[in-house]
């Protein structure tokens, strides 16, 4: 089987996918999907290309991802041990956590005062951006390919030339009284 990523092993991918799925959750890709918890309908960050974005050369995170994946699993083992959770063997620890535990752990890692938050917040930002910008691919391609996030948000597709124009953009009527001290140039006094 082809590895899922050129720079990460499959366990690392699964851990990072589980983190991305915690940030913007989605439906499982199949009955045996362990990374995606299935906590929300429709594709989430994972189906939107979170791993592609995290590993992109442009993003600059690629080099630290194995460390981040190991860190997430270590935190997950610690989290499980403290709460008496049993983690399934053979599954990376973070992915083995239930969705509520993943969510609570992610919130803890990114909370004010957590010394590691500078590691996890960017990873969360990339996860959100995978879903709501599809930044690992051209936006026109993402929309044409049915990108789960952009489609769910109702992001309007471009015109035939790949550019956006909205000729109808205004209610075209007076909707409020302007401030009585507005100057002739339209400025505050």
């Amino acid at each position, binding site marked *: 089987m082809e590895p899922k990523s050129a720079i990460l092993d499959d366990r690392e991918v699964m851990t990072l996918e589980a983190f991305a799925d*915690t*940030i*913007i*959750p989605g439906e499982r890709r199949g009955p045996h999907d362990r990374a995606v918890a299935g*906590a929300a309908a429709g594709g989430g960050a994972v189906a939107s290309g979170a791993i592609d974005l995290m590993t*992109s*050369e*442009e*993003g*600059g*995170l690629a080099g630290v991802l194995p460390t981040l994946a190991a860190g997430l699993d270590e935190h997950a083992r610690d989290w499980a041990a403290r709460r008496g959770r049993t983690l399934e063997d053979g599954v990376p620890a973070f992915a083995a956590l239930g969705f509520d535990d993943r*969510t609570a752990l*992610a919130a803890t890692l990114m*909370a*004010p005062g957590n010394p590691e*938050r*500078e590691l996890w*917040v*960017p990873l969360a*930002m990339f*996860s959100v*951006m995978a*879903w*709501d*910008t*599809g*930044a*690992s*691919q*051209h*936006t*026109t391609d*993402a929309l044409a390919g049915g990108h789960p996030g*952009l489609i769910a*948000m*109702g*992001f*309007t597709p*471009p015109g035939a030339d790949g*550019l*956006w*124009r*909205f000729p*109808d*953009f*205004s*209610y*075209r*009527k007076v*909707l*409020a*009284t302007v*401030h009585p001290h*507005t*100057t002739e*140039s*339209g*400025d*505050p*006094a």
Partner: protein
Amino acid sequence: MSRNDSTDVVVIGSGFGGAIPAYRLAAGGARVEILERGPWLTGDDFDHDFKFGSSSTRAFEFTMGDGMNVLGGNCVGGGSVVYFAAMPRAPRYVFGRRGGIGERMWPRTIDRDALDPWYDMVAESLPITRQDWDDVTYSGGLFAAACSRAGRTANPVPAAIDRDRCTNCNWMMSGCRFDAKRSLLLNYLPAAVVHGARIRPLHEVQRITRTGDGYRVHYNTVDEVDYRVVTGSGTIDCKLVVVAAGAAATPVILQRSEEDLGAMPEAVGRYFSGNGERLNTAVVDEDKVRELLKLDRGDGRAYEAYQIGKGPVCASWDKLDGSLPEFSRYSLEQLYFPPGFGTILAQAPEAAGPTWFGTEKKEMLRRWQSWLTIFIMSEDDNEGVFGPPPETGNADRVSQQMLSRGALSYRPSADTRAAWKRADEDVRDILERDGLARVMPWNDEVIGAYTVHPLASCRIGDDPETSALDDTHELRGHPGIFVTDGSAVPGALTVNPAFTIAALAERAVPGIVAAAGRRGLPVRYVAEPPPSVSSSAWARTADR
């Protein structure tokens, strides 16, 4: 590869603070070199694309700090290329602000009356035009109608946008594909090039040292794709330096120069202001929009138009009231922020779990077209302080482009937090009436505060203890170095600051011309507005 050149004036940065002096000094006969850290992008380079590596990351900079994050331009034209072109003048009371220092922040020579002629000059040059209700987008109209229903006023905001060319695509944070936004690429910069100024993109200034009769500016050149890669270095000797690298970079260059130039004024890298900025995102109830505000797009939809428009077009200025005490004055401006930056910190109202990520956040994002974002510009207390400079640039780069981590720290004072709270409550009062919308401020715990309008980190003033520059923008103790960008603005303006930054830069030029004369440079002051061009590619072509 290293090269050494000389000229009359080096201008560091090509945004409002750099482009304006560059044009007027070049037109007046000075040899001018403009060093710009970012790339030189024009028209067709401005992509409608979120992909990493498109103009959305090439031209834009997100510098994370400790408690304050700065978003700004990183390209020829600086902030003018990525801004939303909202151009209101600062209200009169702003110039009398005292803030936490308990004395007037602004030099006594500058008030609204004194600045109005310089505002006029900028307004003619860009140009800036008064907007009317036909220019107001659906989202601006929605906010105006909600303000009106709540007994408030609302104003279309003056803008530097050519309405005939604008397509309301809302991609303006990636640069304007249609040259509708009147950025500096269409006026001051081409005019500077016509008069012989040379623009050098991808030149990141590191420090300034002294020569026998002037200064030497040291720069690195950076790779056009991976800004982390240094491709060369060089120096330019000059008589005068205009520092306009932006409020997140100007103080860093000066801090790094201290070793050779000698002590910097205490206020270099202090008193940073985020313009009191803060965002609230509302999710509106479409049925209530129709029922309460009587709004209809004519196609069956009441609103569902967050994506459509040209950034902020409508603002409520009721609290821009000089009779109110400091820290209770602010403007509320409807705003568009694209996905990515514009969504991450938005919080799901009434969430039982996490507010900024997770299942409830995803549900909020599904209703994205029904969002309305309100931008608060209030009065903060200049709490930002820069730590020691990084090895190069103003921050350590994380990504190839756009994302970096700098040494700015910011702890909002009780006054600042109280101002934000008042404004948040006001937004809620306007938008939550009768269930029109649910509103939450953006999360300020995850990364701290944020600003798209960094100011005051090297400010003008009368008191040498609390200002780095005198009222001519000359750096105290370092004659011949002028600072003319947002870092010179003394504090929060309670409105979008680009117009004020530009007006101050215009006002500074005669003083720089006089300084040139004192150094034997035959430069005269030229008051004519820069000729306007219709294509942003014009100057780049002419420069070659």
